[in-house]
Each structure stands twice: as structure tokens, then as C-alpha cells.
């Protein structure tokens, strides 16, 4: 449980990135879906919105019951805001701000993503 909690942190801006972690090849990720990346003791969910060619990353733990499942959820949009729906109880979160869109759970952490030479990189502050 402690490791889950230390994995949670507020969203931060790309210019605060100290480490760009090279996660995996673009082609390894499902289109219009998610996958989970391991970085140190962190689990990070990464999503590719193919229709808009946008990438997003957030914590893998759903703040509702703290299960490591967000990467297995379904992506979509809420009035244009890209979002992820937790597979457990369909709690939805903005992938831009991390806020819970259909309830008042704590916001999830969001991480910046960049693509270089067909590799997916996730930005961390440490």
C-alpha cells in the first residue's frame, strides 16, 4: 500500500521533467487503448488516441479503491476532454487535469508523454 501511495503525486508541467523515461516502441501500444508502463516502483498507464494522434499518461492506480487497473480501462472523451474510465466501477478522469469527471474522488497524477524516433517517452520529476 505504501508503494501505491508514494506513486501518487500532483500533475506537473513538462518543463519540470527531469527524466524522460524511454518506455517502449510506439507499435507496442494498442491504438485507441491503454497499456501499463513500469518505471522504478511506479505503474503508469499510457494511452494512445489514434484519431487525434494524441498520447496521455497517468497513474495506474484508481483513487477509488487503489487497484492498479486504470491502464485496462476504456478511453474516450467528455465534451472534448480526453478521459479514462476505470474498469472497476467506471469512475472517469480527465487525462489533461486528472480530475474525477463523474464524482468527487481525488484527482489522478498526469505525466507528460513525448514521441521520438518511434519510441514513447514518459516524463518524471525524479
Amino acid at each position, binding site marked *: 500500500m505504501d508503494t501505491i501511495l508514494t506513486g501518487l503525486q500532483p500533475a506537473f508541467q513538462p518543463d519540470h521533467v527531469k527524466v524522460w523515461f524511454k518506455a517502449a516502441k510506439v507499435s507496442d501500444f494498442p491504438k485507441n487503448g491503454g497499456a501499463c508502463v513500469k518505471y522504478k516502483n511506479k*505503474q503508469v498507464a499510457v494511452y494512445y488516441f489514434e484519431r487525434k494522434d494524441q498520447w496521455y499518461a497517468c497513474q495506474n492506480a484508481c483513487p477509488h479503491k487503489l487497484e492498479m487497473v486504470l491502464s485496462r480501462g476504456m478511453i474516450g472523451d467528455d465534451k472534448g476532454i480526453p478521459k479514462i474510465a476505470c474498469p472497476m466501477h467506471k469512475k472517469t478522469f480527465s487525462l489533461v487535469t486528472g480530475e474525477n469527471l463523474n464524482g468527487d474522488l481525488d484527482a489522478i497524477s498526469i505525466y507528460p508523454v513525448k514521441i521520438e524516433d518511434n519510441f514513447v517517452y514518459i516524463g518524471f520529476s525524479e
Partner: protein
Amino acid sequence: MKTVVVVGNGMVGYKFCEKFVAKASKEAFKLIVFGEEPRPAYDRVHLSEFFQNQDAKALEMAPREWYAEHGIELITNARVSDIHRNSKTITTTADATYTYDYLVLATGSLPFVPPIEGVEKEGVFVYRTIEDLEHMMAYANKLKAVNPDAKAAVLGGGLLGLEAAKAVMDMGLEPHVVEFAQKLMPRQLDIRSSKVLQVKLESLGINIHLNKATNQILGDTAITGMEFGEDDTLDVDMLVISAGIRPRDDLGKTCGLDMGVRGGITVNNKMQTSDPEIYAIGEVALYNHMIYGLVAPGYEMAEVAVSQILGETEVLMSEDIDMSTKLKLIGVDVASFGEPFMPVEKGHSILFENKTKYLYKRINVSHDGKTLLGGILVGDASDYNILHQMYLNGIPLPENAEDLILGTRADGGSVFGSAMDLPDTAQICSCESVSKGAICEVVKSGECNSVNDVISCTKAGTGCGGCKPMVSDLVNETLKSLGKVVKETICEHFEYTRQELFGIIKVKKLQTFNEVLDACGAGDGCETCKPLVASIFASLYNDTANKEDVIQDSNDKFLANIQRNGTYSVVPRIPGGEITPQKLMVLGQVGEKYNLYTKITGGQRIDLFGAQLNDLPAIWKDLIDAGFESGHAYGKSLRTVKSCVGSTWCRYGMDESVSFAIDLENRYKGLRSPHKIKGGVSGCIRECAEARGKDFGVIAVEGGWNLYVCGNGGATPKHAVLLAEQIDNETCIKYLDRFLMYYIRTAAPLMRTAAWLEKLEGGIEQLKAIVIDDSLNLAEELEHDMQGLVDAYECEWKQVIEREELQSRFKHFINSEDRDDNIVFVPMRDQIMPEPWSTN
């Protein structure tokens, strides 16, 4: 900063807090709330629901965190013992002292226990709190262990008493209701309606005893019976007393506040007691010489007290309290409004009664026939809202007032006109005091664009929920008047109903979610429309979930049911519940090899729990090698066709139920549908397969099978209804093909067959016409489409095992072979279970 102390954390006490924090600033006021029960305020009105789910949290008005977030100090398990008006302090039984500027007494009431000899005996309970229920349940279980036919009586045939009768029935005891008066719900019903309700309740297995004055409770230490008069006794093993309430006014009495002669703390129309700094609200307050035991007046009192304390002195309690009520008692609608029993000098009554359908309607109208004065509805209260509004607003009656309860017998239109005809002041939601004007205004101003918006913005419909249909009519009508289109659309991405989208995809032969979005949708889709489109693809082409896994619901995506800790369960198909010893051993070996928790399911198969995502392909490879297939336990699809052993072995069996169940399960396996589908086949009318509790049930009778459809267990159990009688196997399959395909095409998302039939215009007769007489000229097409799906069936787990590229999604990490190390199991009865959730 001023301190407001609230004594009592029931429904009204909670409502006070809710309304207070909505208006008062945190800086100016500090709110301290004392609750005597261990948990925060819960919904007592729906207490009997606690039996169905045993979930006290679900009944909570707001979770404990809510109080903290709003700066309210909530002290539960604490009882205030004294009020010291001179020093403006209170003390608790734990000798803690608190100072107040304003004190609000919301101590509610206690069940009234009549002074009958023997009420102290073991097995006699009152019905008021969750703890009362827990004690009753424990006692009921003890009784049933010794005597499966144990009986329980409820003393009191009022509203709460009948709820209690439902509760003891749910506990598996034979229920008896004992009432002193000559009718049930004496405050709400007249004799005739009480009779109708009685006949209905008796048909549900509840025994009613009227005109009974209980003299004595029989038994040595524990209750064994009740004595009413000489030679008039009733043997019972448990008694629940629900004979009315008495206000809990001790605090008021001991500190010298003005009291009513028969109890209750006297308040004025500001909810002030005789001490202007002390307020009383809810069932402890005596207003107009009356104690009001309903939620709506209690909420209004809370509103008045909040306003008065915050200086809005013009907000006063209404002069006349509306005692109208509508409720569903044990599934029976009962409503009464205005003047339910009317003296002849004020007007006349119009009555309708049909005991065969358990219906009773009565309206009381003025002598000139122009005004509605009150009424009673039993069995069907669907018109309650509009009748109640007509009564409250003095709306003129139509020329033939009897149409109000009989319906128009000529063609065209409703007799009521539209909810829009009500005046703006009409109170639509009496729990939350929301007027028609307020509802229409938030729509007109553009603030709200849907029923859900309006509910969250105005709170209308969040109390008892009875006004929701009316709120939704008002919102839709207002939207229409603004020229906005109102439709039950799927979500923001598709402006269609499921049935319309089904048609579009079929006609345009769309194959992927992107194609559907491009053709008729917007945005990226969401968790509502994606699985819906996936389900339509499956129904049209029998695509397995592997084709486009990212639009599947989570369980379909991983072809397994996600469990509490993020692990999965594995359920191979065991058609009809028939399995060889060899295959049974394979299941045992797989369970042992992967350390899975193993349980027999309700659908006659075996569920293996605790499989980690990474292990799923290997587990399924072992199963498929041994000849198993996916059981689709994770899908909105055919689950199982349960069977009894039938004429092959059973000496009563009329036909081979197992063989037919296997045929049916194999025919419809993998069939995706708007919701899950279950079937059953019984070899005789003893019905051991419980086929009538299924979406389709087949029962062997003399001369063939009887086919029943649209039943289910679950949250709202429903028996399947007879579709066809004495048919042979072939006809049965033909009718089932047509029925299932028609359901799949026309049902709304996540609508089970029972709910679908309820919505189907014309009901079962219409369904018979479509399925048997082919009234829509669709039969051939439906059968053809079904045959196409049957022929296209493939086991989706076999696809995964055979095609390596489909296996990549069964890894927890994309960049590591590691597993999720947060999964922790703990031992339980020689097996494993997930570590309990540590939050909430």
C-alpha cells in the same frame, strides 16, 4: 463565530446540516452534530432494503467524509444527557460539555411499545434502527436453524408495520400482521382499499389479522404466541412491534421547555421552542398540536430552522401540512392524498375497484364536481403525481371527473393534459420543495440541458424519487418548447437510440468503431457507446471480442471477469451442467496448478478465481487442450442453460431436460446481447432447474414443452411468462430464435428481457403475436439472422491461444515481464481470497 449544536443525526438532522452548510459561511458558524447511533444518518424510509443487500453504507444520507469536508464536527455513538439553558451548554453521557449559541433538537422518536403483559420476552423486537434489524436477523437465523417453518408476527398494520412484515418475510419467516383497527394503514386507507391491499398481501403470503387487541404475549422466557381473547391465540416465534411512535422529548422536558400534553416539544412557525435559542425539528417537534411522522414536513422544518438561525426571518413553516404519501409497499403501489376519507357534507366520492387485479381508486370531489379534495390509490399509483398536483393547486376537474381514475374511454389524449399546464408555483418535489417554475427556469436559462442536469442542480427527485417521472416530463417539454430535440440518445457521441444505431450499422455494413464514428458519430466515443457498438457488431456479425478489444467492456476485453483486487475469474462452459469425471479432474488440476479459489456457480458450472492477467492465456491453454471452451461468463451474452436431471434418471421426469439444455446452450453460446441472458430447462413442473427465473425457460409437460420468457433473478426478481404451450423441440428452437433476435435488435442497452417486455407496447400478447403469429412479417429474417450467428460461432479463447498476436494484451506491463506486485492474497478456509480493501 457562532456555534450551532444539533442533537440527533437522523434524516431530518442530516437535512438540517445539508441546508445549513449550503447557506452559511464556514467562518461565521461552527456546526457540531451528535448522533447516538454508531453510523452517520441513514435513510430510515428504505430500511427494509437493508435485508436485500445488507449494505448499511448504501443507505447513508452522506458518508462520514462529507461532514468533515463541510467543516461539520460529527460525534457519533454519543448521547446528549442534559441541556443547561442558563449557561447555554449541553453535557453528554460521557460528561463532555459543549457551549452553543443555537441548539437544534432533532432527536426524532422512539417506537411506541404498548404495555402488554410479556413484551419483555425474548424474541420481541422493535423496528427502527439498523441495529434492530441486525438483532432480528440473528434471532430469525437461530429460529430457522431449529424450525424451518418458524413464524413471525408484526404488531401494527400501519406503514412501518407492513414494511416490517416484508422484512420478516425476507428473513424466511412466515409473516403475520396483527392490527388493532379494522383496516390496514388506518391513517391512509378506507375500509374498501384496505380490503384490496389485504387480498393482495395475502396473495404474496402475508397473513393479516385485523380487529385484534393483544392481551398477552405467551411463552416462558421466549415468545411462543400472542393471546387476543379467550380461545383466540396465534402461535408465533418472534414478534416485531410497530405500533406507532412517541417523540423523544426527554431533553426538552428536563430543561423545562413547553411540552405537549401527550409529549412533543412545542414549537412555533419558526420552529422555535419556548426558549428562542432552542429549535426543535422533525418527529420530536409538536407543531399545530401534531407530531408529523413523514419525511417531507421534517425537511421543511429543517429548512425553516436553518433560515431562522441565519436571519431570514420571513421563512416560516406552512400553516397546513400536506400529509399525502405515495409508496411502494412490498411491490404494491399505495398512495393517499388530501382528504382521503371524506365526510358527506363536503363532497362526493368516485370509486373504482377491481379485486381480481388488486386495484382500488377513489377520488373525492366537491359537491359541484369542480374541485379535487383528495383520494386513495392502491395497486396502481402511476397517476398519483398529477392527481396530487391537481389537488394542491386547485386545478379545475375535467367534465367527466371519473376519467381521472378510469382513463378516457374515447380515443385520443390523456385526461390530465400535460404537466406543463400546472402553475409555476406547483410543488413538484415535496421532499426538496422544488416548484415547477424552478425546474423550468433552469432549463430555460440554459443552465441545464437534461434531466440529470436538472436533478443535480435543483435536487428535485433526490428524496423519495417519486416525482422523477414528472421532473423528466417537465424538462423534456420545456426543452421541446425551446426547440431543442429531446431523445433518449446513447451518449454525447451518438444522437441515436440503440435501435436506430443498430439499423444504421446494419444498413451501412459498418465494421469498426472508427467507421461508425465517422459515419454517424462525434468525438472519440466513451465507455457507454464503445461497448454498445461492440455488442451491435457481435449481434450482427458474431464478431468475437478479439476483433476490436479496445472498445470492449473491461471483462470482454480480457475475456474474464475482473475481481475486487484486479485479478480475474475463469469460467469454462459446461453446457447444461453436465460434465465427465475426467473434465472435472482437469478443472481441479488447473485450479491447483495456478492456486485459484474454486467455487460452484449458480449456473451449474465452476468458477476459478484469483487468476492474474499474465496467467490467463496459459490457464486457458490447459483448459482448451482438455476440450473446454469459453463460458462467456464475462460478457453480455448467453451465460448458461441450467437443467435438472430429467427423464434420463429422474422418476418424475417427463422429457430429457439435460439433452435439450445442452442443445440450447450450444446453439446460443457466444450470442452477444444487450444484457446477459440465462436459460433453464426443467423435466417436469417441479421445476428443479428454476427455468421460470430465467430469460427463457422450458418446462416439460404432457405433450411437449412449455416455453416461458422474460424472467430473471437478481435485484428485481421476476417470473418468466408463458409464451407457448406443448410445443416440440423444433418449434421451441424456432420461437426462441425469433424471440432472442427480436430482443437483441430492439432492447435498450443493459436492459434485461423482463424490463424489455415491460416496455414493449402490448406486452406478452404483442410478443406472442410477433413470435408465434409473425404479425410483423419478420420471423423469417429473425430466424435467418440467428442461424447466421450460430454458424459464425467461434470460441474466442481458442482464437487467443492459437494466434500469438492476440496474447500481448494479457501482460500487466508493456515494458516488463513483472507482475503487479500490489496483489496480495490472504488465506480463507483452505483457499485464497483477496486482501480486503483498505479504503471505504
